[in-house]
């Protein structure tokens, strides 16, 4: 199941990031076609393509676009979330560096669909080269006359906070405020950036749009499963022979991804566990990898596709230590706004660290599970629910490994 590559088709060209290379390979033809389409027709095409958000939540993209109030008089903003920060995820980086014009063209089409004249691209602060490459592409697009005629792109750099990848945290940060997620309702499509209706889409999601317009919704939908069309880019890292970004139809299984694409497991060669969708996804054991990697396939397996960051662990990896690292990340990155998240991320990190350092107590594991479950679903944004994924799954699936570290009384 190798299949056709769409998003990564030009990645082997050394000049793939240039306007010339992009146009040579058919770039900006979709934009020409879309200009003859009614906005509603574009939205409809994307809906029928079953394109789902590839940043993490997997929300149907066309449906999201249709939430913009009809006949809204003021400005509408398109915001591109290029604040790729989910641990284990590095696909948007490749797109920004190797095919930035795909994003520009996708934005032109998306902006037409939602009637937006201004878009912001919020680039992760640490992504210096992707920011340079994308900014150059924007400049080229202005010079070529694609931009500046009723549609402008503003490139904005973040300052390194994970929470600014949460769509309303991103909006707050974009507005010049502390990157705190906002209360919903109102949702961004009603009242988003600077109080205007706003659509926030992931880089990869928007890069798919020109292909959908070029080749049609039916083609795109057929690439995937019944509920999710197309391909997506899987970031595979950890104990595999060939870590990297692999584009595959969303129906690929986790086993295929690890063994057929990434070359199998390194180290002692024995797979122990896999995180399938970035650090916030629940962990899968070695015998749970025959799942399809689409949004619903992984949801049914009790985890999530998230950002498609696949972290592979072999038998040499300590699950308690991994949880400690993950817990430290969430404690460090919690924005501190909601009490349950602010307080329990730090508390759970302290408990996991104590266990790893051999100072655990037998009640600690149940306390972590209880604290995690009590806080779940009580906060403004999904950050804490993301943290709860690993807290619970690592302990429930590998409890013996934790217990072995706790001194007997």
């Amino acid at each position: 199941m190798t299949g056709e590559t769409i998003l990564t088709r030009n990645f082997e060209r050394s000049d793939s990031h240039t306007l010339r290379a992009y146009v040579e390979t058919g770039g900006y033809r979709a934009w020409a076609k879309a200009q003859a389409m009614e906005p509603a027709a574009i939205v409809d095409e994307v809906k029928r393509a079953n394109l789902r958000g590839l940043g993490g939540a997997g929300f149907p993209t066309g449906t999201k676009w249709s939430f913009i109030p009809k006949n809204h008089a003021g400005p509408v903003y398109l915001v591109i979330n290029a604040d790729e920060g989910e641990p284990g995820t590095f696909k948007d980086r490749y797109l920004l560096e190797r095919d930035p014009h795909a994003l520009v063209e996708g934005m032109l089409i998306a902006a037409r669909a939602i009637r937006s004249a201004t878009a912001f691209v919020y680039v992760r602060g640490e992504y210096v080269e992707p920011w340079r490459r994308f900014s150059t592409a924007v400049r080229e697009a202005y010079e070529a006359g694609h931009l500046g005629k009723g549609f402008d792109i503003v490139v904005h750099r973040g300052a390194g906070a994970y929470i600014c990848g949460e769509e309303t945290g991103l909006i707050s940060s974009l507005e010049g405020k502390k990157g705190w997620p906002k209360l919903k309702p109102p949702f961004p499509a009603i009242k988003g950036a600077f109080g205007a209706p706003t659509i926030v889409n992931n880089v990869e999601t928007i890069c798919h749009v020109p292909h959908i317009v070029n080749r049609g919704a039916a083609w795109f939908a057929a690439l995937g499963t019944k509920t999710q069309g197309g391909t997506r880019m899987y970031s595979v890292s950890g104990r595999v022979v060939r870590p990297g970004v692999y584009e595959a139809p969303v129906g690929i299984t986790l086993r295929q991804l690890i063994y057929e694409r990434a070359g199998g497991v390194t180290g002692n060669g024995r797979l122990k566990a896999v995180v399938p969708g970035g650090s916030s996804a629940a962990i899968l054991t070695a015998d749970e990898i025959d799942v399809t990697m689409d949004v619903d396939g992984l949801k049914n397996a009790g985890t999530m596709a998230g950002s498609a960051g696949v972290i592979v662990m072999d038998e040499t990896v300590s699950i308690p230590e991994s949880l400690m690292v993950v817990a430290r990340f969430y404690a460090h990155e919690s924005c501190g706004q909601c009490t349950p998240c602010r307080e329990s991320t730090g508390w759970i990190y302290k408990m996991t660290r104590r266990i790893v350092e051999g100072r655990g107590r037998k009640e600690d594991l149940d306390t972590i599970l209880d604290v995690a479950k009590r806080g779940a679903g009580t906060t403004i944004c999904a950050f804490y629910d993301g943290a709860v994924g690993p807290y619970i799954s690592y302990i429930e699936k590998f409890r013996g490994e934790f217990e072995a570290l706790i001194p007997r009384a």
Partner: protein
Amino acid sequence: MPRLTINGKAVEVPAGTNLIEAARSAGVEVPHYCYHAGLSIAGQCRLCMVDIDKTPRPTIACNTVAADGMVVQTETDRVRETRKSIMEFHLINHPLDCPVCDQAGECWLQIYYMQHGLYDPRMTDEKVHKPKAVPLGPHVILDAERCILCSRCVRFCDEITGTGELGIFERGDHSEIGLFPGHELDNKYSGNVVDICPVGALTDRDFRFQVRVWYLETAKSVCPGCARGCNIEVHVNRRRPHHAEGRRVARLKPRFNADVNRWWICDAGRYGFGFVDGADRLRVPARREGGTASDATWDEAIAAVAGALRRLPPEEVGVIASPKMSNEDLFALRRLLDVCAVRRVAVQVPPRAPGDEDAILIRADKNPNSMGAELMGLGGDARAVLTAARGRQLKLLWIFGHDLLASAWPEPEVLEALRRVETVVFTGPSANLTSAHAHWVLPAAAWVERDGTYTNFEGRVQRFRQATEPLGQALPEWEIVGRILAPLGEAPSATRAEHWFRQLAAAVPAFAGLSYQSLGDTGRRLAGANP
């Protein structure tokens, strides 16, 4: 108007009402920290969870607008468990230093832990440490470890004063309230952040370590600091006077009045009570003869003033009453002046510097009862009284409270006037430069030591109640005036402030129909009032 059911009780609330307020109208209290009716919705504390029919999990009440047909439950098992969890989260990093915390006894962590927590503590790791005892400004001090990061103080400075001194810095459980660089919490309303802080994070530098709050007694009152008449509570310490070196008034707190000050008061009003226990308070009547002052009895003082009034022709008497006197005082004085046919009467003395004013609460007129004085017809020309004194036309000049020597009038003119009058009488709570020139000093009770009413700039008549006993032999002005009326042939008809108010309501059309009962706790606006 949406109609909904809360804990089985049907209520109808105005459109846009959130579920905390809707529940309140049904007599149901939803516990909360970050929500404050005077501020924007933050939704951060996550304590105000309620169950709404057809909603998969508990929802915060503060950010949910009441909708028609909504069925809300505030006491389901699920909600109680969630609340308990949220309480635990709020407290895991809290220092639990109630024995040394000023908030103890009025702390919402204590109250809600007892009502909704009562879990067995299980956090055994080292708590997060943060800055303690950080002065934020002249009035407020921060203990960041006690803070629950509800952001009320931040929102207050952003939304009410618009001064924006405070922010939340750092992230996660290291988040802390702090000042933006180069700023100080020194706006004119800074003390309010202490009131709205639900815990002991922000405490009042003036009140700190004075007395435990459970020893305080409370009286509903009105701030005398300007013409706004903000509603306040006076908290007095009568049970543990030794804890505060005898200081009786422990603090003033704003009292909600939707039409006057809502939840707030200014710092000038909040900290303006120092004179009540000040060293310059007048405690006993005194007379000054040939440069030497000596204590007198009330009988002597009353006899002296009454005698002068009886003896002197009315045109040789001048009175400068005060817009700081209550309606009752002013009405009693008006009766006395009528009896004696005195016409040289005034109330307003121009201040040396114009008072500050803003669009929030503070009024330029620093007197609480200018409107009352005007309505009673006492608003004569004070400068004319002064001129008459300088022209040796007056034998008796009675000054209430004013310090003429600290006014806009030229000092030599005032001194000349005071020296050219045979008998200068001063009545007020505190000594000042002018009282030092009086031949008779009659000590008046401070506003917290007595009952009365003020009429604010909008014509709202509001009661203030006695919080503590008058200092020494001080008396309310209405009683001093009443005692002088007796020897002049007016039988004592009023033994309480309320009696004078009744007579005022009967005599002055603007006040017709009002009574202490009808004024209630938040006052009544005069029918003819024209702001």
